[in-house]
């Protein structure tokens, strides 16, 4: 299952840079979730402690939720393309070629963007459902 040709070093380095980016991309969607979560918790905590205008903060955070969802959606879309399951038909990506690893990282990033999407929706619900700082 090894590759046919011996890869050249420069070719490798370029590919490596791309893959480093896609390893990072696996964590990108959860990181957006984490940033959104921290922003919601932190800002609401300070607002309630300092008596700032909670309604304005809720509205601002809901806008931020929208932005986070768009960001995760974008990550998910690029990951879906990288996985490329529609063309390869390979849902498992268990091969030993560079291509398999490339598709796998896309697959994993895609799944993580779905879970992050759900996470952001969950965490945004209290902003809608709970009125103030009581």
């Amino acid at each position, binding site marked *: 299952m090894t590759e046919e040709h*011996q890869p050249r070093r420069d070719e490798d380095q370029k590919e490596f840079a791309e893959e480093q980016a896609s390893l990072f991309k696996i964590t990108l969607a959860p990181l957006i979730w984490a940033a959104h979560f921290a922003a919601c918790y932190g800002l609401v905590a300070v607002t309630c402690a300092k008596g700032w205008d909670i309604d304005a903060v809720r509205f601002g955070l809901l806008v931020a939720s929208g932005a986070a969802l768009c960001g995760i959606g974008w990550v998910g879309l690029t990951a879906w393309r990288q996985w490329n399951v529609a063309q390869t038909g390979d849902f498992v990506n268990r091969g030993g070629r560079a291509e398999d690893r490339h598709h796998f990282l896309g697959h994993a990033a895609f799944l993580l963007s779905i879970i992050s999407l759900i996470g952001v929706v969950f965490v945004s619900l209290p902003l809608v459902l709970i009125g103030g700082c009581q």
Partner: protein
Amino acid sequence: MTRPSGLPQPEGPYPPTDEMLAEPVPKDVQEAQAKRLRAAWETPKGWRYVTAVNNTEVGKWYCLTALVFMLLAGVMALIIRLQLAVPENDLVSADRFNQLFTMHGSAMMFLFAVPMFEAVSILLLPGMLGARDMPFPRLSAFGYWCFLIGGVFVIGSIFFDAAPRAGWFMYPPLATEDEGPGSDIWLLGLSFIEVASIAAAVELIVGTLKCRPPGMRVNIMPLYAWYVLVVGGMILFAFPPLIAGDFLFELERSFDWPFFDPTRGGDPMLWQHLFWIFGHPEVYIIFLPSIAIAAMIIPTVARRPIFGYSWIVLSAVGTGFLSFGLWVHHMFTTGLPSISLGFFSAASEAVVIPTGIQIFAFLATLMAGRVKMTLPMLWISGALAIFTMGGLTGVMLALAPFDFQAHDTYFIVAHLHYTLFGGMVFPVIAGVYYFFPFIQKRLMSDRLGKWAFWLTFSGFNLCFLPMHLTGLWGMPRRVYTYPGGLGWDWLNLISTVGAFVIAAGFATFVWDLIRPKHKQAQIPRNPWDGGTLEWTHDVPEEAWGVRSIPHVTTRYPLWDQPDMLARLDAGRYYLPDAEEGKRETLVTSVIDAEPVQVQRVTGPTWITLWAAAFTGGAFIFPTFSWYTPATISGALAICCIIWWLWTATAQVPEADSKDVGLGLRLPTYSAGPASVGWWAIWITMLGDATAFASLVFGFFFYWTASPDFPPDGAAHAVPGLIALAAAAFAVNWGLTVGARQLNRAGRVTPARICLVGAPLVAAAGAAALIYAVVELEPASHVYPAILWALAIWIAVHSGAGVIMQVYCLAGSLFGKLTPRYDADIWNVSLFWHFVTISALVTCAVLGLAPGAL
């Protein structure tokens, strides 16, 4: 920008072709290679056995020590259950009871559950990755000895009636005001062990990223390795907040600095936040690696590849992230605004999704496969059943209104034991049965194993299922006795009976584990027909780990690469020899595992024991306020560690590259991002930065929580000195990085001049920072106290950084550090990148925040 060091690049064909692999190795060559390899990896005999650093030895000690601590904590649980068996019991006093439950929780968490992950991973991971050893064997050994010393110290306190007694979470003000050394023993003893945990996490992360066999790309590595990566990362972000909390707590205990004392501006809630930012991810730090064992066992018993590999990776990574958004669900009744509770409630519900996905993936694998019901699988089935129950009550408790009712009752005790037994104890025991042939080259008894399982399983449910009801009927946790006639009597009695049935199960298991097995015939090499690399182990045992490091192209190489085992045994693959008589393993690239370097790993030594003993002194003596012996001990520990590094790490090799087999030549030395040491520093400093961030969080937390922070008319840090410190740290950074660049460019003398200047400037910076706050009274209010704490943090780090700079200077003078071999200065400048950022942030907080807030 940086000039290349001139060290050779890997040369030769890679990946190997089928013809190359098919070519046989002559018999006499094989034998000569095996002999040299055996000599290089020989385990020390007799009383020198304790100097061993090989992962198979250290891993075994680690597991056994954690097991002993677990049994001790289990005995404490039995005493607790005896005391509660009947109402108005007086078997133990209230004070003793407090010590028992505090110690039971602390020991189970810090001395068993977390160390068990490290222990099992150190023991198994190199086997699964076809590596000879972990990249830093002496670090593992050092971590183990620290764990042993700290653990004996902490758990031993109960025999002197001096154990901590404020609950395993040490809430102030109860714990800060508590008389006697109990709280200090908890804080210092466990901080010591936390440091060892972080060391293990660094080791495991670097091992997974850089020591995989050639060809094992990230999409085909064993799932266990994915879990190790995730859990290692979680340890790096979860433990440091607790270490920062411990630091503040101990300053309050020892010097009366009022971090958690509300009468002087402090806030006990800060401790709760820092503790649970650690405490909740910790639950998953315990759970994920144990479920990872299930992910290794299930494909074997189902005789098919795991179903949904990517889905399991998703669930591991997803759980890792989400688990950091749950900590406040331990604090639902502390009076936070309900909208804040809502966020944590929502995240607590969301984490169920990835957790559930992995369980469904396991079930799907079992349904699609031809299951052979083995003993390990029996334990895994028990685990899944129990864990699911615990998960369901978890979903209930994540709803804040339900939690208000159940908080601090036995319902919680039932819930947490269901998650921990199902999520940790059962899978780990399954793992012991499954991996015992790999570890000891013997088999455990099927009959005793079934007895142990049914006793533990039924005893567990007998003990903890009624507790849900006990809790719902209102029995609070942590009471040493209760009046009769409230409906709790018979429930408690059943629980006590159940506890002793569990104990009988454990006794059976432990007996099976330790009973002599010399008479057993030689076991088959792969008794379960597993597909992963650890089952290429040698029977009878060889200490070299793997005869030659294979080229792996599939997820289950023993199933899918039929010729691999014979070729591996013949030494056809990489590093089949130890020509120089040195211990070596392969270092590969992070994503695609292309071979990049031959790493020399360290061998048996006494120095790790000495270093651990003195480090132990530095942590243990302050418990009794013996500061002079503590300081001496700390200094000796530093000396030991320097000697250890100087004589064993980043040694100039006798040749720049060597033939590793199959025509490939690899370099024997590397510096910067190519080296494992650099990665280790990077990962360590990430954890360190998290601890620092927790301190800064503390500063802003006080500002949020109190209307007058800083208080009106408070004295501030001296602005001029702060500016001076900031300038000094910036200059120091320039000199350090400059030394690295100049040295690499061959301009050794200017580099040495930089290395003379840098420590002086750094010391001046630290001194300026301390002088900026020296006039403030830290015991008077939390504001000066937190400024002091930040300044001390930076000063201590600068001290370590100065030692490192002087080490590099000495290296340059004595030929250990040259323009060609410069790993040390790369690592030191990486350390200073982090410390410089922390120092500048500290200067900003000290100098600018009083004006801005």
